[in-house]
């Protein structure tokens, strides 16, 4: 039995006279205790999918199961068992840290004491501020509080919708460390995020764009499955380099990546030599071309471009 299962889920929204397809035939199977990432930009359908799985929205087509329970028929039971942290954290800003936690504990008919061990390492970081109003906490602390509130009833499945958006880089790292620890407690976690680098921290990921999944696998596997040869290219003038490469017919894709650009060629016998010649002719200096291993972001962009 899967912890979370989506079978052919589709969902459209009506906007003026147009139908916007938010989710298109989504099929997913997530195992118990997995740390599963749903990776995709804004508008890709992540929030819609999570809301459907947490029984907040009804899908137009398809079915879903959480812990073996039907998301439509058994929604009341599911709601007792899942933890949910929507975007923007949903805390009560005028209640204190402690009051928020107590409230959510009582909503689930439990007390802070009962499951304290589960949230201890998280809550301890904000405990010194327990009498502060939640509205006055920094982004990172709100995140920790919201996570504690979502865990306080020891759910078997945890849904986190973009929990790291708008939070500083250090807190983001800490948050993922906390998630890894939770896995050890046999909690299945589905996290959505627009940050590609966070994909590498998950056990498995689903890449989603414009309502469709285009890859579901372990991050390592996705990278290994990346078939084309990827090259990193540098020269003295980055901007002109990108322009020149993009206008060259031999180039399939060229994207800036920090201090170099990542290029996939169409069909060259000797990429390094031919490219160097091309760039020299364009009067580039300090040319460096080297083959590199693809990262998740490269894979995402390649798959995105392919499906366009």
């Amino acid at each position, binding site marked *: 039995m899967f912890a979370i299962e989506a079978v052919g889920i589709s969902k459209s929204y009506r*906007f*003026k006279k*147009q139908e*916007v397809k938010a989710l298109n035939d989504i099929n997913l199977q997530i195992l118990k205790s997995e740390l599963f990432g749903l990776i*995709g*930009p*804004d*508008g*890709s359908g992540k929030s819609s999918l999570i809301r459907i799985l947490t029984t907040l929205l009804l899908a137009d087509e398809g079915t879903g199961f959480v812990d073996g329970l039907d998301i439509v028929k058994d929604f009341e039971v599911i709601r007792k068992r899942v933890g949910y942290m929507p975007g923007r954290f949903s805390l009560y800003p005028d209640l204190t840290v402690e009051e928020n936690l107590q409230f959510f504990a009582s909503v689930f008919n439990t007390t802070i004491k009962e499951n304290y061990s589960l949230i201890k390492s998280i809550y301890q970081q904000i405990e010194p501020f327990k009498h502060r109003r939640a509205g006055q906490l*920094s*982004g*990172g*602390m709100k995140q920790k509080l919201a996570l504690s509130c979502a865990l306080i009833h020891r759910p078997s499945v945890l849904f986190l919708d973009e929990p790291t*958006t*708008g*939070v*500083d*880089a*250090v*807190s983001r*790292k800490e948050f993922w460390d906390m998630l890894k620890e939770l896995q050890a407690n046999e909690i299945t976690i589905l996290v959505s995020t*627009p940050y*590609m680098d966070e994909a590498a921290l998950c056990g498995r990921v689903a890449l989603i*764009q*414009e309502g469709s999944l285009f890859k579901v696998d372990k991050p390592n596997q996705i990278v290994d499955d990346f078939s084309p040869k990827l090259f990193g290219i540098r020269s003295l003038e*980055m*901007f002109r380099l*990108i322009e020149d490469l993009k206008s060259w017919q031999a180039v399939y894709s060229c*994207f*800036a*990546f*920090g*201090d170099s650009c990542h290029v996939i060629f169409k069909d060259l016998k000797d990429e390094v030599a031919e490219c160097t010649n091309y760039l020299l002719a364009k009067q580039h200096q300090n040319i460096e071309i080297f083959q590199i291993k693809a990262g998740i*972001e490269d894979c*995402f*962009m390649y798959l*995105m*471009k392919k499906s366009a």
Partner: protein
Amino acid sequence: MPENYLIEVHNLTKRFAAFTAVDNISFNVKQGEIFGFLGANGAGKTTAIKMLSGLLNPTSGDAKVIGFDVKTQAEKIKKNIGYMSQRFSLYEDLTVFENMRFYGGIYGLRTIEINTKADEILTVLNLVNERNVLVKSLPLGWKQKLAFSISILHNPPLVFLDEPTGGVDPITRREFWELIMEAANRGTTLFVTTHYMDEAEYCNRVTIMVDGKIEALGTPLELRQQMGASSMEAVFLSLARKSSRREL
């Protein structure tokens, strides 16, 4: 002033009661630079930008933007800059063209100029068929690119971009930066804040703010070498970890 500095900041400070949001920062931005302003939330980035764009009065220190003093000539500054932020960009219930007309009008462009510019932008962004479409129905990536183009509609010498690429897909992010680099190529100076560390690499120079102070200033290469780090992200993390403000 040996070079053509578009922004000059000397000991700029902003205090809100007992809290010092921006603590004695100094830096200069040359014309045509892409200047990256990095830092965690709460480090003081947004406050600094607000002071430089004439929206907030400094507590002490000076700053000149395009030669105008931020304390006394704020209105002149506003006329000559472009501004785009992630949170606010365009009016969703107006069409693409209506937004252009509106912003063009605000900056005093004549109708002919607006029409010409609009055609240019629509062609470059491949949005010619979307001229009369409500912004609300555009995908996020297109909206962001459009917002940027509109912010430079009036050809300002300096543009402030506050976290402009949040949440968009990776391809759009790069297309966006290509637009930025193109603008820099044409001589526009761009002041960008971002929390995507790889984007720091696209900037000519970068500063990193921690607890209201500037902890690093230089080209990405210089900073990486200084901190012995392999990436800007590593540079940022090692500086940000020192922050005491994070616990607030």
